């Protein structure tokens, strides 16, 4: 879990004469698959989700009616039933696997450092920027809501060059609005800047 601070890598404090801290090694392949037991419960959450989706598919399938013209055992219900059944079965098998100590292997990547937990503050800020755009795009238009999205994202990811980021954000959103309008013929909402653009 993150402490919610921006400084993630501890800085090297000054040591004695000639001493130095080695640069932080790039933990490309950390072994984060066998975590403490506290994460067990969240693993079960995946099984619960699969179960819920499976039950949803099955109950929804029940409400479908077969056409009189359909022949044989396969009708409108069949495929949703099968998919729902697959999901329920996988929910059970996954729960068994977790109970036996199986863990989902977190996905690595060239820019991913799994040695620290998920940074929920960053995720929250990113989601906020995203939601702000969804709420505002039709009211104030893409040139402004897109800029808010871009600026909010750079802020969430730790960039603190407000002036630079604001300029880049506006250039991106106004530029993309023009690109879509002129280049692709798609008119994104113009909103408050109507008449200016």
């Amino acid at each position, binding site marked *: 879990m993150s402490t919610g601070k921006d400084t993630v890598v501890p*800085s090297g404090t*000054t040591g004695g004469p*000639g001493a*130095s*801290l080695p*640069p932080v090694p790039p933990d490309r392949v950390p072994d984060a698959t066998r975590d403490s037991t506290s994460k067990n419960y969240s693993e079960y959450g995946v099984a619960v989700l699969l179960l819920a989706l499976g039950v949803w598919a099955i109950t929804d399938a029940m409400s479908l009616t077969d056409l009189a013209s359909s022949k044989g055992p396969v009708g409108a219900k069949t495929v949703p039933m099968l998919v729902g059944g697959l999901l329920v079965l996988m929910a059970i098998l996954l729960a068994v696997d977790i109970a036996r100590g199986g863990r989902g292997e977190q996905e690595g990547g060239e820019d991913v450092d799994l040695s620290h937990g998920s940074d929920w503050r960053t995720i929250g800020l990113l989601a906020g920027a995203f939601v702000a755009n969804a709420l505002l795009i039709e009211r104030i238009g893409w040139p402004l809501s897109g800029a808010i999205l871009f600026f909010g994202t750079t802020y969430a990811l*730790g960039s*603190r060059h407000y002036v630079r980021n604001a300029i880049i954000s506006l250039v991106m959103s106004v530029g993309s609005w023009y690109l879509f309008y002129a280049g692709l013929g798609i008119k994104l909402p113009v909103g408050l800047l109507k008449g200016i653009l």
Partner: protein
Amino acid sequence: MPIVVGYVPSPEGRAALGRAIEEARLRGRRLVVVNASRGDALVDRRHASAGEWESVQQQLSDSGVEFEVTQQIEARDPGDQVLDVAQQTNAELIVIGLRRRTPVGKLIMGSQAQTILLEADCPVLAVKAATS
């Protein structure tokens, strides 16, 4: 009252280090070498690689001055990080490397040297790379 030098693996950075060693010897002070980067890009020119960092320390050992080195990666501007080290160690002098920048480049990317020059509490010695 040490001398703090902001080291960047570039001609300016090396010039600053060379001058800082001279100053340290001249004044009989301890030298604190800071290599600070933001660590927000996959590849950062400011960050000295292990090999470069080692050769810096070799150069320092050979010079015979008393020294400390610190390499830090923080989500802050490197200029602020150098200033912090200077403040903590109550530095007598900060030595930095300087390079020519376009006004637009400075506006967009900011200038770490400018931050240090304007905000340091102690004198700052700015060194340019040898023009050869």
